[in-house]
């Protein structure tokens, strides 16, 4: 919402400075977005007379001008504008002037060997229009030496404020003035409009035609003004409209635009000569269209409200008029419309057609119904003053609603909600200044809401009115109060896990990324997602169309972007939400890591102690298990099973589970087909752990740990080399060995895996080290031999292994 300072002062008697007004606007909730003070910005630019303009001796396109700036001797200026010539008046700026359109400060210069002491300016250089074809040409009577902005009527500062959607009343200058007056900035001018008596009935009737459905217009007022002389509107009106960025068209149209901004009363004018028969307010019919005043043709449907005559649709109700019945300089009889519209319908129609007009903006936020007729009278008076003519009486279809909301307002609410404790008199004075009626006695006042405030419907709204006018700075900062106990832990187990997972993965050298929650459909499909239910109806781009089923694709694509930028070896992780369905419980927290190239846990690339190997399934497995350890998960209870979902390499991936129903996560190298589908290059190895899936530890009554069982007796180790089929899992061998004597065998690990001709085709040797932990006596050779035999027998039974000879 823009307006000029002088325009505001027509509604507000005030001595306040521009700065004080700006501060007050922001303070009461009408946030100042900018104040453009051209008089200040353009102060050095003055009207000047070009005494002579000679060809530059060294440049075809330049002229050497002698310029009378009104300060004495003419000044020499080199000018390149094609229209620079002797005898013209233009705008001059001396050295030292800041040129806003060029963002430079002018200095005395020498151009192709000729000194230039200033500049003749184009409108673009002053940022008053886009015109940079030549220097500004001023009429001969422009007084030399006068500041240009003052002469051109640009001296009036333009104030731009942001209006929140609840304050349609401040979409007119009068409403803004009312708030400022209430805030103590001055006195609000009388806004009442004396009725304009008409001569004779309006010859055009208005009919609502909505059948059995509710009317989309509560009220529609119309009057004819006969015998007007349309043409350019007066200078004062044009200056106001131009200052706020509107283009003057003709007096009749300018009057409607002026009142839209002056009083938040959008109006429409029809050229009566172009209207055939009566006006009908109705829903549009399928197939109807309208060539609107913006020169575009809009296809209409039955949800839209229009104003039609015998020729068809003439105007899109509350949004934009039609070209066919618009007013031109030839208009003699004008029909003036002042109507009310259903806000929701206006919003839907405007959105559907993509029209953002000043009228739509106001009607969808709410127009003062009580000003429907006064607004029409005010327009009539302006038309009579500017264009002459004789008005008819007003014809009104529908009824003007009279919202007379009365609220019981316990004044204590102000203190209860804000902490400020104003007097009842203060409260009453503020509400009255804002146009509310106040009756009754404290502690409960009866407050009548003015017709222009659709946002007020409860006592909390009245508290806001009082507080914003008093000033929120009057609210005392009041400590919230802490518990008088030591702070308790506040995070849920899953929140603790999420945080810890990030630190644990970072500690393994992985770098945390935050990637989009949505991926391309093809990418989602490659990772088990892509369901219709999880596809956005209005994605911002095809690359961000589907909710991610996994964090892996985001990291894979990120790794490739880094590779494309020269970082081939990256290790990334993300801990965040994945979507398996639309319900809240289908949203899971995944902790996912990805290593690319040679980015292993101990570093990447070449090194004098040995180059890092390409990442593999075992890097991913190590990351996954290390993460689970860090989270305190029961890792010893988890099973590692070969294979993982289809986006992993089938022979180089695994699943971590607590039985087939409870999958904790997966790890592995990515499937070559997946890499191809995402157009990325490997090697890539990653894992994904679903944090929600990890069982919670059982709650225990104390924090006591079981006593340490540190045996005094030395453990004994024995090595075994088993020859098994190549496909036999080492995990099986270890499991069998451990089960041979659960009391005695403390650990078993693989220290060598060998395949070769010596072992035989399709066979491998797996060497394991078994640790025996004696409990009460040192083991005898016979006991060790006995347990060794049991180990060999168990492993043989489980896997068909034979001891390597």
């Amino acid at each position, binding site marked *: 919402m823009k307006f000029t300072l002088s325009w505001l002062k027509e509604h507000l008697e005030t001595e306040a400075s521009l700065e004080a007004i700006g501060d007050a606007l922001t303070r009461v909730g009408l946030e100042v977005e900018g104040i453009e003070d051209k008089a200040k910005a353009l102060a050095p630019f003055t009207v000047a007379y070009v005494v002579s303009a000679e060809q530059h001796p060294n440049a075809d396109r330049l002229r050497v001008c002698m310029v009378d700036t009104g300060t004495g001797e003419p000044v020499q200026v080199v000018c390149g504008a094609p229209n620079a010539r002797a005898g013209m008046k233009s705008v001059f700026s001396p050295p030292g002037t800041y040129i806003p359109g060029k963002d430079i400060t002018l200095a005395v210069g020498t151009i192709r060997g000729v000194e230039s002491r200033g500049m003749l300016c184009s409108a673009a250089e002053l940022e008053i229009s886009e015109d940079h074809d030549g220097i500004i040409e001023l009429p001969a009577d422009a007084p030399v030496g006068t500041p240009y902005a003052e002469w051109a009527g640009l001296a009036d500062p333009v104030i731009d404020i942001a209006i929140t959607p609840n304050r349609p009343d401040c979409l007119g200058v009068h409403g803004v003035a009312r708030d400022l007056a209430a805030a103590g900035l001055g006195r609000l001018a009388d806004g009442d409009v004396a009725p304009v008596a008409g001569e004779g009935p309006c010859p055009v009737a208005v009919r609502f035609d909505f059948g059995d459905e509710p009317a989309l217009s509560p009220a529609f007022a119309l009057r004819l003004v006969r015998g007007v002389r349309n043409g350019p509107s007066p200078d004062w009106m044009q200056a106001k409209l131009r200052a706020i960025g509107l283009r003057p068209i003709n007096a009749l149209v300018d009057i409607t635009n002026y009142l839209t901004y002056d009083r938040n009363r959008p109006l429409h004018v029809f050229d009566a000569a172009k209207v055939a028969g009566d006006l009908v307010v109705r829903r549009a019919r399928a197939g109807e269209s309208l060539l609107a005043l913006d020169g575009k043709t809009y296809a209409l449907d039955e949800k839209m409200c229009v104003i039609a005559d015998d020729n068809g649709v003439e105007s899109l109700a509350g949004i934009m008029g039609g070209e066919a019945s618009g007013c031109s300089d030839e208009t003699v009889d004008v029909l003036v419309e002042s109507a009310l519209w259903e806000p929701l319908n206006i919003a839907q129609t405007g959105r559907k057609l993509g029209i953002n007009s000043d009228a739509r903006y106001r009607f969808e936020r709410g127009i003062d119904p009580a000003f429907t007729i006064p607004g029409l009278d005010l327009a009539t008076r302006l038309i009579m003053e500017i264009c002459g003519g004789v008005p008819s009486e007003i014809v009104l279809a529908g009824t003007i609603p009279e919202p007379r909301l009365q609220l019981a307002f316990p004044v204590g609410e102000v203190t209860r909600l*804000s902490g400020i404790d104003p007097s009842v008199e203060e409260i009453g004075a503020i509400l009255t200044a804002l146009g509310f009626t106040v009756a009754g006695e404290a502690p409960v006042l009866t407050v009548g809401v003015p017709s222009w405030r659709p946002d007020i419907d409860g006592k909390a709204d009245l508290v806001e009115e009082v507080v914003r006018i008093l000033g929120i*700075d009057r609210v005392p900062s009041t400590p919230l109060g*802490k518990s008088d106990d030591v*702070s308790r832990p506040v995070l849920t187990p899953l929140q603790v896990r999420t*945080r810890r997972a990030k630190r644990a993965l970072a500690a393994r050298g992985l770098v945390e990324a935050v990637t989009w929650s949505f991926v391309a459909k093809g990418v989602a499909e490659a990772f088990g997602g892509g369901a219709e239910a999880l596809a956005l109806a209005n994605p911002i781009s095809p690359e*961000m169309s589907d909710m991610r089923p996994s964090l892996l694709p985001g990291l894979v694509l990120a790794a490739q972007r880094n590779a494309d930028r020269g970082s081939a070896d990256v290790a990334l992780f993300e801990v965040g939400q994945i979507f398996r369905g639309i319900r809240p419980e289908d949203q899971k927290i995944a902790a996912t890591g990805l290593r690319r190239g040679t980015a292993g846990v101990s570093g990447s690339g070449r090194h004098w102690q040995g180059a890092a190997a390409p990442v593999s399934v075992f890097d991913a497995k190590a990351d996954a298990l290390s993460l689970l350890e860090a989270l305190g998960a029961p890792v010893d209870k988890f099973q590692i099973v070969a294979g993982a979902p289809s986006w992993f390499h089938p022979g180089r991936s695994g699943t971590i589970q607590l039985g087939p129903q409870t999958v904790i996560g997966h790890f592995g190298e990515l499937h070559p087909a997946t890499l191809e589908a995402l157009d990325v290059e490997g090697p890539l190895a990653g894992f994904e752990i679903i944090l929600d899936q990890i069982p919670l530890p059982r709650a225990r009554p104390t924090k006591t740990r079981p006593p340490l069982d540190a045996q005094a007796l030395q453990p004994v180790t024995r090595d075994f080399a088993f020859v098994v089929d190549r496909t036999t899992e080492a995990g099986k061998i270890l499991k069998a060995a451990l089960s041979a004597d659960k009391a005695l065998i403390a650990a078993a690990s693989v220290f060598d895996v060998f395949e070769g001709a010596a072992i035989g085709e399709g066979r491998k040797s797996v060497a394991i080290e078994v640790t025996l932990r004696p409990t009460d006596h040192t083991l005898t050779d016979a006991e060790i031999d006995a347990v060794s035999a049991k180990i060999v027998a168990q492993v043989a039974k489980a896997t068909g292994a034979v001891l390597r000879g």
Partner: protein
Amino acid sequence: MADLDALESDIRQAIAGAADEAALEAVRIAALGKKGSVSERLKGLGAMSPEERKTAGPAINGLRDRVTEAIAARRAVLKAEGLAARLKAEAVDVTLPVRASALDSGRIHPVSQVIDEITAIFADLGFSVAEGPDIETDYYNFTALNFPVGHPAREMHDTFFLPPAADGEKLLLRTHTSPVQMRTMQRQAPPIRIIAPGRTYRNDSDQTHTPMFHQVEGLVIDRSSHIGHLKWLLEAFCRAFFEVEKVEMRLRPSFFPFTEPSMEVDIRCKRVGNEVRFGEGDDWLEILGCGMVHPNVIRHAGLDPDEYQGFAFGMGIDRIAMLKYGMPDLRAFFDADIRWLAHYGFRPLDLPTLVGGLSS
């Protein structure tokens, strides 16, 4: 006796000439071994007269002691020389670079770090961390929060929509973290103090907007909290978060459908290059929106707005991270550029705590 002197001189010469411990041992055996030159003399004492023995005894024994001592001394020297030689041979080039450890290269994203910082501050004041789904219903995102159907405020949210659920429920990506207010009030009886950090989505992308961003919601519901408490809380939070002694704040009346009165909060600051200094300068920087929870919202949660009251606020996490740590561009947050992450990210053990300082 002259021959003893000559012998001692010979032996001493041999000791001095022993180049290593083996040679020294040979000298020892030649002198003090069973058949050694000194041992032979000692053996000769038995055949001497008592008078001869009286002088020869001490002389030969003295010789033996001196030789023993000289050998020990020489052995110590040779051992030290040997060790020195070994150590010299073992020397390596310590300027050779070592591999960086995982702790050096791992990083925490600024968004995670800042969420941890925010949580540390609010947890100290008794706030817990609430959560809600990213895929929300139209009801929780708008209707329950007092957004009238078709109201312009609803349109201002640039909502991403999903196909409706089987039961016809309209689904969308939450445009703010405020739906967590209602979910929390339905789950938990007052008094309530929560924050709800999380991802939010709007169909908007330009220099300063990304279609996904992070917000933190705050909610206090009890029987007495008012704007004054809200003001104090926000001031206290900003001081703690930005780690400054003083923050100057400006609350401006504004509008949100789910709060009444509603306010936006600016903080006074000065921009120096990419640095933002708080509490000085003439710039006001908007950092959050807040207000007293609207009576309709309290009512929707099944509570009586005449009995319960409170306030809510919402703040951009990415935005305050940028203000505190000076990242110039929001879009880089979600690009996973390893250079950006290594530069603006935090080390794995940089744990923000109130006892140790948020960003020490």
